[in-house]
């Protein structure tokens, strides 16, 4: 049972954004995915892209509440990467994966569909962030990505106190919301 325990530890670590865990998962799985892609018409850069995206899918999965992975992380990453790479090949109109899967795969279609939706939302938010301008962009990034406390943000951005910074943050947020929904409703 030690393997199952270890795997659980890794997934919890990944969900908790633990750098050491991320590094361990990279070390244990990267070479396998890389050779799969290189053996199927891909480059080392394609491998890096696909692996990172597969990691995002795993991260999204690990974050969901009462999540259980009913296979090994290795199998999951391989299945996701293989599907992603197949799709990429199709988009590029190169011919598909010729060699058979060298290891066991599982169905990941639902997870990928979910990932695609999330990726779409991410891109919309990214576009809105790019449009919002400074200082809003940095202010929101400091708060929502770097998770800095308001006092620190107030100091860094030269606001007299945390309350002023907070008011500014909410103004920025209202603007971001407008930009985001303008696009969001457009794509629906």
């Amino acid at each position, binding site marked *: 049972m030690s393997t199952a325990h270890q795997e659980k530890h890794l997934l919890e670590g990944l969900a908790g954004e633990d750098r050491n865990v991320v590094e361990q998962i*990279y070390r244990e799985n990267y070479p396998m995915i890389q050779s799969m892609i290189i053996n199927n018409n891909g480059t*080392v850069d394609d491998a890096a892209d696909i692996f990172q995206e597969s*990691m995002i899918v795993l991260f999204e999965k690990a974050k969901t509440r009462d999540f259980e992975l009913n296979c090994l992380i290795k199998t999951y990453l391989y299945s996701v990467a293989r599907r992603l790479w197949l799709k990429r090949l199709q988009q590029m109109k190169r011919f598909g994966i010729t060699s058979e899967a060298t290891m066991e795969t599982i169905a990941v279609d639902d997870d990928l569909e979910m990932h695609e939706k999330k990726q779409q939302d991410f891109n919309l*938010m990214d576009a809105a962030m790019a449009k919002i301008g*400074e200082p809003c962009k940095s202010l929101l990034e*400091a708060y*929502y990505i770097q998770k800095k406390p308001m006092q620190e943000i107030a100091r860094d951005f030269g606001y007299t106190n945390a309350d002023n910074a907070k008011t500014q943050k909410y103004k920025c*947020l*209202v603007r971001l919301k407008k930009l985001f929904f303008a696009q969001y409703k457009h794509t629906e």
Partner: protein
Amino acid sequence: MEDTLLIDAAERFARGEMSAEEKKYFEELRKNNPELDQTVVEYLFFLNEVEEYGKTRKIRHIFQETENKLAGEGVIAKSPLHGKSKVVFLWKKYKRTIAVAASIAGIISIISTVIMSSISTQKDNKISLLVSKINKQGQQILDIDRKTDQIAAKQDHNHIAATPPRIDARFRATGFMIDANNNYIVTNAHVVKEALHKLIVENSKGEQYVAEAIYVDPGSDLAILKVKDETFNKLPPLPYNIRKSNPELGEQVFMLGFPKQEIVYGEGYVSAKNGYQLDTIYCQLSTSVNEGSSGSPVINKNGELLGIITSMENNADGVVFATKSSNIYKAIENVKKMKDYDDIRINSQPSLRGVDRITQIKRVRDYVFMVKGN
């Protein structure tokens, strides 16, 4: 309640930071005010999206750092970096992290400049604009042009030599007449942008005339030139008419342009109603074009002008984008408002319907010009 107050409340509510009393008050407010409740629901959804976005950016950053670290140790293979330019090197190395890196306070402005320029070049790499740049070899090409002219002049009395040229051209593209009465010519905005000093138009006989860009709209990639030269011989009304409605899928079209020093004919069909990334300003054609084709008229078999060749996709064969002709009308409306150019009118006497292609080409040829400049 003000927007910012409401979003503050929504955020504290979502994070469970409200006191029991405040929460009760907030929930009652939502219950009694459906409109406000709707707004709160929207905020809660939005705040969740922001949180998710933040998390994804953070984890991507961690992934990227891990990848770089392992690449440094040789665990992960990386393609060798090409190019000696430092910025290109940095861009390639940090392609994926650069957005995150930008958030680090202090270097924000510097990095974001790099990102913006990199992103825009990234995007531009997928499509190319079809201006032929003569650059350093400009003089040589002109020399060749002149020699060709001399030889041609000996053999063909109709060929009027381009010499002496008005300018040493640095680029070449195409344009065509839209108002033969007042000598207005349409080409692409990106063509005109190339002209830093002088702009001329040259007809298929090699006669050059000074022109001025009086209207440039990068949005629809259209520019309108006026021929300023007094020596320019007025042409009869246009043989083609300019279509107001959108092109139809599958319409057969032909083009005349200057991908080289002489006029070149091309054929194709409308393959999609919108352009690159579904841009509605453009339509997509299936044909082949070359540098210098920018600004070429796209005409159907009935002699209706449907568009203006603008760009092509790099990663696909024969995918060409043309600005839809309806944009010409918009441009003309704007030019009419300008004090000195309110005389612009499309005057056409369509004469292409029902005649064979060779006759059509002969009739259109004189209305298509090389646009050159330096």
